């Protein structure tokens, strides 16, 4: 090994190579941003309500029980396709009503069943959250999840 490569050579390969891969990564990142903006998330309009729904999702740390697009905690169901699962993915009013019913029923208090907290969301917050889920459901995620179970 000593004959094949000196420390200086190893160092130069490290710096040079890393720089190369960073540049490639940044170029692909730029292309991906454009793909997201122009291709994969254009099937539904990103309204102000959707943006507010995302805040509701974040402020209540939903990701620390649920997954969204497969990322998060694995304690509670996947929610990217929740509106699909509930059969209301093309019906904003229905989506709101089902979600409101669900949120108001928590926690279930059933013994031996995982509990979702009562978040005391306002009607407007629930509407925004429902719109957020409807929007997320329309992201083109290369066919993931494999089925309705999420």
């Amino acid at each position, binding site marked *: *090994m*000593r004959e094949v490569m000196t*420390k200086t050579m*190893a*160092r130069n*390969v*490290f710096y040079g*190579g*890393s720089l190369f*891969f*960073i540049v*490639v*990564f940044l170029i*692909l*990142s730029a*292309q*991906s*941003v454009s*793909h*997201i*903006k122009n*291709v*994969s*998330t254009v099937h539904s309009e*990103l309204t102000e309500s*959707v943006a507010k729904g995302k805040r509701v*999702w*974040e*402020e*209540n*740390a*939903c*990701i*620390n*029980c649920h*997954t*969204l*697009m*497969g*990322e*998060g*905690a*694995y*304690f*509670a169901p996947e929610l990217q396709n929740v509106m699909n699962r509930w059969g209301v993915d093309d019906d904003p009013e229905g989506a709101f009503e089902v979600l409101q019913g669900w949120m108001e029923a928590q*926690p279930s*208090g059933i013994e031996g*069943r*995982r*509990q979702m*907290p009562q978040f005391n969301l306002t009607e407007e917050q629930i509407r925004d959250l429902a719109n957020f889920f409807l929007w*997320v459901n329309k*992201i083109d995620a*290369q*066919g*993931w*999840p*494999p089925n309705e*179970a*999420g």
Partner: protein
Amino acid sequence: MKYQSQKVAYAYFLVAMILFAVQVSGGLLAGWIYVQPNFLSELLPFNVIRMLHTNSLIVWLLLGFFGAAYFLVPEESERELHSPMLAYVQLAILVLGTAGVVVTYVFDLFAGNWLLGKEGREFIEQPVWVKLGIVVAALIFLYNITMTVLKGRKTAITNVLLLGLWGLVLLFLFAFYNPENLALDKMFWWYIVHLWVEGTWELVMASILAFLLLKLTGVDREVIEKWLYIIVATALFSGILGTGHHYYWIGTPGYWQWIGSVFSSLEIIPFFAMMSFSFVMVWKGKRDHPNKAALLWALGASTVAFFGAGVWGFLHTLHGVNYYTHGTQITAAHGHLAFYGAYVSVNLAIITYAMPILKGRDPYNQVLNMASFWLMTGGMSFMTFVLTFAGTVQTHMQRVLGENFMDVQEGLGLFYIMRWGAGAAVVLGAILFIYAQLAPRREVISRSASEEA
């Protein structure tokens, strides 16, 4: 201790160990909720406990890295730290921020406030004021360490360490960028999470390992430093484009499935190299260092990192596999062993090495320390096996057969009970480790007894 200012590392390691205890206790609690779902459900819901579990892990690992840097940079640079005072100020800011985070998560007094309320993206849930505090503390740290290095001797170990630390701080700035578009949000969120644990943190880990092996084995610096550059080169060559394995199903282009599969498969190479490097150096080395526990942790870290990060990572990184396993207990299994092997163990290794020096005495409680290694490593391995089985069953039932999430989870109860038992062993091991570091106690096996045998 060659340089007085190395002493600041002691305070960092102390706080790190306290948070380590908080982290594993949080894990035990969360694991118990999987077994008894009604436990604490109204008082301290699962999501809050999980935030405490993950956040305290990240903070204590970072404190360990900072402490390691403050310990090894003076020795490498052959001069005192630029300012020990600044190092304590930095620690105070981080402790204040950590306390603030705990209060914010548990009591949620400022929900929705842009400055004081929690932000709620996974792992970077800290309120904005804490994030700003982290940046200030990090800048103080970089200033302090960089000044020390610039004025002193420059070695490959400090080069790589500094590069890793600068990189991780700069990448953290993406925590302030939260686009309304979820796909964009996720894409740049991975700039922090992936490029930390599969990029910059690997640089930090490799340089700490190199420092330890240099001290423990007595192998020639030239050899160790050449290896260090080769290892971190393979880490970044595979890890940067390896980010692609998180870009399969979040609205990013399809080509990431191939780029991610190919490059993240190569991510096993740096971990294999670190493991082989550690063992080869120990075999080649002629020095018989008295701190056997530090050697055990160093070898253990590189080995468990190879299995946890390397093998378990490869297990579900190919996009054809990941399509079914994404976001199941398989991910949890990999995450737990990877973090334990790579970053927890390397921190415990440097703590084990540095503590006797910082306290100015011979290594003590080596037997207890080594027992804690086997208890924790055994516990984490069993936990990983159990979660892997749970994840395999879950993947088949939920992703292939399409059964409802909660129905599948109820079928996994036995695995979760065993996981909790494994977690209890880890907590015991952690307590034993902290005790072995802090409480002086006569060795069970005396030096003369072991020499006779």
